[in-house]
């Protein structure tokens, strides 16, 4: 059986059947968000690879590609890596955390409002 027709480069990102819903008023914003998220993923992948290399160097003093591919973190190591990923995502998505906090605080004065207030003589 030939897999010539099964080119992963072409087929991995295939669109699912059914018209895609768009959530932002401007679809281009959503396109940029999708690309950003994909990059976010690839940075996470690179970081996990670096972490693996560091741990292999600490353990063995050398690193081979085979050792990277077969590396199995123990529970503590896996937890450390998982925790890093949580920090990382929280850093990347900070603006949404702040959006939530803004909702919780309700109406707030802006610095410009306060500047006007502080500039008043009486």
């Amino acid at each position, binding site marked *: *059986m*030939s*897999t010539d*027709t*099964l*080119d*992963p480069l072409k*087929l*991995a*990102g*295939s*669109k*699912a*059947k*059914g018209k895609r*819903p*768009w*959530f*932002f008023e401007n679809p281009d914003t*959503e396109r940029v*968000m*999708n690309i950003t*998220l*994909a990059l*976010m*993923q690839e940075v*996470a*992948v690179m970081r*996990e*690879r670096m972490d*693996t290399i560091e741990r292999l160097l600490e353990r063995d003093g050398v690193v081979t590609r085979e050792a*990277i*591919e077969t*590396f*199995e*973190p123990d529970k*503590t190591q*896996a*937890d*450390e*890596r*998982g*925790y*890093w*990923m*949580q920090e990382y*995502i*929280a850093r990347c*998505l900070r603006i*949404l*955390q702040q*959006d*939530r906090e803004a*909702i*919780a605080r*309700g109406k707030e004065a802006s610095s410009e409002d306060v500047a006007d207030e502080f500039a008043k003589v009486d």
Partner: protein
Amino acid sequence: MADTERDPRPEPIAYDGPPDYRVVGRHGVYPETSHDEIARFNFLAQMNRHLSTKVMPGVAEAFEARIEPKRKTPYTTRHQVRKDLTKDPMFQWWSAMRRATMETRQQAGRWVTLRQAEALNEKVRELTEDDPRLVLDPDFKQPRSTDAIDHHCMPGSYHTELVPGDITGPANYDAGIFATTGGMLGRFNDGGGIAVAQWVQQNLPDFKPKRILDIGAGLGHNVLPIAQAFPDAEVIAVDAGAPMLRYGLARAKSMGIENVTFIQGDVSNLKDMFEDESFDWVQSTMFLHETSYKTMPMIFAETQRLLKPGGIVLHVEQPQYSDEMPLFEQAMRDWDAFYNNEPFWTKMHEVDLDAWMEKAGFSKDSLIHGGVAAVVDPEVFPEAAEDTEQEDYGRKAAWHVVGARKEG
């Protein structure tokens, strides 16, 4: 901790996130995964967790603080709530990221399986060729419910073969579900099936099924634990998707589970396949929402026809919408229906299942109601095991059971 130490952070690390993907259960036809492919799944599991625990609560907060107060008359339907939600940036961002994460997960899993398609397809062919436990129908016509749209954004849905004998679709489903659920279904994604088997053993201790039918079985991950719990029973798994069944048999055999036969069929009409009263147990797990308003009553009638007197039917699903469920929660639970290609999810969840079961011929007194939560290894998945209060509307690894015991 001293400043000189690498990576200073509070000790000990109170980590309660998804487990590393490397703990996933690998059976004989599981796709190989490279270091970076695993890292990609790790990221996706963490993104899903972040979205459900850190972003989604913001939608409820926005609804309370600025969406509902603007409404002039009280909401009377969940669709009104959803239409208003779609105008709010918090809902838009959560939804856009949730959809993007789902699409990215499909891409990640498809990459893994397509790059080794030839080897995977060959391995499955070797395990299933000439095995009488795989019964496919080359003339089978996909029902509209599986063909209209690719379910949960999975390109090709459950039935597409890119080349003859192609099983990259189910292999992708199998490999990626661990990332989608953050491992909440356990190593072999069998936590739901284990829970159902235990529920039956606990609640119906006198029930000793000899012949079990799983409808809408997919690749069989929900029925294998039942086959294992009742090793002397003959188990038949029916699905519309040939690749799922082919992969399902190979997967089961490689796990040493030999009592399951995989048959292609339309579960709304199995008259040519099985005689009346030929099963002790008919099971569906997270399947009803993949059908349609037209076919669901036919499926219920078929289960009634197929059951022996004293036999049971059980449907495992996410909870039905009821008057007691707030419209906001209903609207959130509808998300997968409108934005994750699960079109019947919305109507299915408003159906009065009890009434439909009675209409199919089961008596009111014979109806069964219960609840199950995924049973997983607490060493690996501490959070899933203790049934957290965190809700992930429609995705939580806890389900309702609706069924009946046929009188006689």
